[in-house]
């Protein structure tokens, strides 16, 4: 019977899974596979395992539960082993590597930070502060100006917006970085001007949260910072 694998822990982890349930419908019963000095949390793999809310949520819930009681290495979603024997083999073969990672992550958590910039607000700011943009805008209002004018306006505004996004992203990272042990920054994307995960010591989690809140308050209008954590250290395994 193939098994779905959630996470790897040391055998000292309490592994009290409470009422947490696994993937599938009805939700799979969680159990532990032990090998060498490590454990893996698994459940039977449902036939209809899929990248959908039901199973993603179950995966995440199990990680949260395990992380709340001790250190664990969360697997990425969707890993299935042929049987418990295969899981035990991996635990034994890579015991040293995983044990070392678990030690490094003890007492630390991941915090994820995403920034969303309201486009209208930033475009408005560009028009207020850039005379050339304002002039081009005036010329192209209500169908006026040439195609080239419109293109020039758009290009200028786009560059200014990009510049502001980059500057903001750097500011957010610089503001939070000193409180963290490691970071993983996602490449720029359309939705977020910044998207980064930080590894934060538990002792500093509160301070980190405050720093994020202060940044968000400083920016106020048009800038939204979403902070999420503490999380299992998905980005630092």
């Amino acid at each position, binding site marked *: 019977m193939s098994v779905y694998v959630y996470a790897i822990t040391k055998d000292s982890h309490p592994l009290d899974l409470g009422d947490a349930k696994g993937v599938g419908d009805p939700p799979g019963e969680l159990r532990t596979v032990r090998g060498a000095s490590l454990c893996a949390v698994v459940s039977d793999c449902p036939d209809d395992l899929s990248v959908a809310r039901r199973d993603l949520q179950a995966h995440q819930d199990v990680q949260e539960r395990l992380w709340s009681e001790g250190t664990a290495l969360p697997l990425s979603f969707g890993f299935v082993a042929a049987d418990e024997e295969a899981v035990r083999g991996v635990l034994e073969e890579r015991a040293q590597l995983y044990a070392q990672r678990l030690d490094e992550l003890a007492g630390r958590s991941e915090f994820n930070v995403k920034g969303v910039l309201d486009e209208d607000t930033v475009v408005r700011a560009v028009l207020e502060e850039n005379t050339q943009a304002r002039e081009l805008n005036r010329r192209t209002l209500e169908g006026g100006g040439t195609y080239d004018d419109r293109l020039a306006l758009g290009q200028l505004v786009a560059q200014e917006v990009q510049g502001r996004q980059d500057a903001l992203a750097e500011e957010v990272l610089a503001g939070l970085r000193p409180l963290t042990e490691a970071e993983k920054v996602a490449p720029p994307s359309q939705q977020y001007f910044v998207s980064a995960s930080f590894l934060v010591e538990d002792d500093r989690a509160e301070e980190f949260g405050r720093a994020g809140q202060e940044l968000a308050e400083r920016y106020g209008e048009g800038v939204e910072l*979403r902070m999420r954590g503490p999380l299992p250290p998905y980005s630092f395994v």
Partner: protein
Amino acid sequence: MTVVPQGNSGGVPAPAGGGGGGSGTLYDVLELVLDRGLVIDAFVRISLVGIELVKIDARVVVASVDTYLRFAEAANRLDLESGRKAPSQLTDIVGDSVESGARGKSKGALSGAVEAITESFKGGGDEAEEEPAERERRPAREKRQERGERRSERRSARDREE
């Protein structure tokens, strides 16, 4: 789970009380669950083909004629708008974000952490109300995602047959 400011204006309302398990939570950590985490090559992984987590690099998109024209249009539109209703803007915005905070783009709304927390407490955990808002907020991504899900289900079904 401890609290951390959860900016949410116009986005996916987080369930009141924060803890893991709400749909808002899942959306925010989706790319971590799918894209990060430990990878064990000795195991088989469900197919993630077709699931695009993050839209492509903003810079690539910015450097296109379409984008320039779109920005030019936005600039024109905003200039006209601000000429018309600048004075009462603040009241409008506050009213709007209370009534329709979850319904779409918050135009220049005050969306710092303080408002965000208030929002998420107000937001409650009502799935039925959250769903349409979520979909509206990120249509392209969500649809692509749903297509991806279907595709990967088919694929994993095929894998099992083999």
